[in-house]
């Protein structure tokens, strides 16, 4: 019998090359995607933490100014970014006596950062969309969108 299996090695080699390249590329893409996802989460957490501390710092500054004298007008602008690596975010301020918390949250990926602060003056809590805010004084402190 005559068997016609000549030149098969070219096809086999091509298929093997193709398979190995596919596996390699898929592995790279999967690993890269995972890396991006983790880094996005990490960077967003860092950003929210810095934003929270910036806002807490400005609230403390406003508190110091209110306590430094008989304040009639006070407005401090806090230039918070409108977006993080994970997109828009919300800022929720809660106050219990002299202790307060700023909770910053993004949806996708869901990252939640809580920044505690202390305040001696009266401060109204509330929820805001991320972005520049103003800390106003009118008998008590209030954080409003700029």
């Amino acid at each position, binding site marked *: 019998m005559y068997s016609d299996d000549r030149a098969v090695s070219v096809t086999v080699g091509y298929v093997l090359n193709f398979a190995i390249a596919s596996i390699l590329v898929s592995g790279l*893409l999967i690993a890269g995607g995972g890396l991006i996802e983790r880094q996005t989460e990490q960077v967003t957490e860092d950003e929210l933490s810095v934003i929270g501390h910036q806002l807490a710092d400005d609230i403390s500054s406003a508190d110091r100014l209110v306590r430094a004298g008989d304040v009639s007008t006070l407005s401090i602008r806090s230039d918070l970014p409108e977006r993080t690596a994970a997109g828009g975010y919300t800022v929720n301020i809660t106050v219990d006596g002299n202790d307060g918390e700023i909770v910053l949250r993004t949806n996708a990926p869901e990252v939640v950062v809580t920044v505690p602060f202390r305040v001696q003056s009266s401060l109204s809590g509330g929820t805001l969309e991320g972005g520049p805010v103003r800390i106003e004084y009118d008998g008590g402190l209030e954080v409003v969108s700029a």
Partner: protein
Amino acid sequence: MAEMNDRGQLILVAGILLAVLFIALALLVNAAIYTDNVATRGGDSAGEVLEYQAGVTDSIGGLIDAENAAASGGDNFSDVNSSVAGGISEIDAAFGRNNLRRSASTDITIVNTTEGRLIRERNANDFESWEANASDVRRFVIDLDTDNMTTGSPLVVDLDGTELKINKTGGEVKVNETGGTECTTNADGTVRFDVTGERLDGATCQFGWPDFDTGSTVGIENGTYAGGSYELTIKSDDDPAWLPSETTRAVYSANIKLRMDTPDLRYETTVTVAPGEPDV
């Protein structure tokens, strides 16, 4: 044989996807670096304002003391007051110019001033005895010349009923609050008793400064038992003729309205300037 024009598409697509991944990674790294940069920026927005407020308060306090000290016995309150007002305008202009360089607009306005009396005796061999109505007292400092103190006989400082006996015994100067604190120091040369600061010769002497109010009095009894110098400013409109001869009409305090506007901040407040007042 068919033409193979679509060869290499896997590599091409994979390359594009990897490029997108790298760009996304670069953007994330950039965001992280920017976040760290923002985190290390100075963010104390109250610092500049409080520095301005403290500067203005110190300057006006110094101005009030200087104008009070420069007044003569024949000056009316309005004379001293207008000198203080003129000085405050100059302070306002100086701070305004300085702050404009930092993109801040400032303004100082006098709301009102309070009349007072600057009571002092300088290099006296013995003090006069006196009593004055005073609804507040500030910067009461006595420099006792221990060589001119009568041993065993106390000078009495009466702070609205809180009597401080200042006595020289056994080579020491003793400050004794009736039934309370006693402080001592060596009777050597000049001894400073900062009455409002509650310090004797630099050391703490907490006798408990009383609360002054309308109808309160301050005075010195048995003045002949001690000499040296002293000075105090009281919130009062008593006739200086009844007080020690160097007494002059003075500005006790000033209520000042301060304003500061910067691109990120608006601040307006009213402060009372009464240098050396215990509760200020």
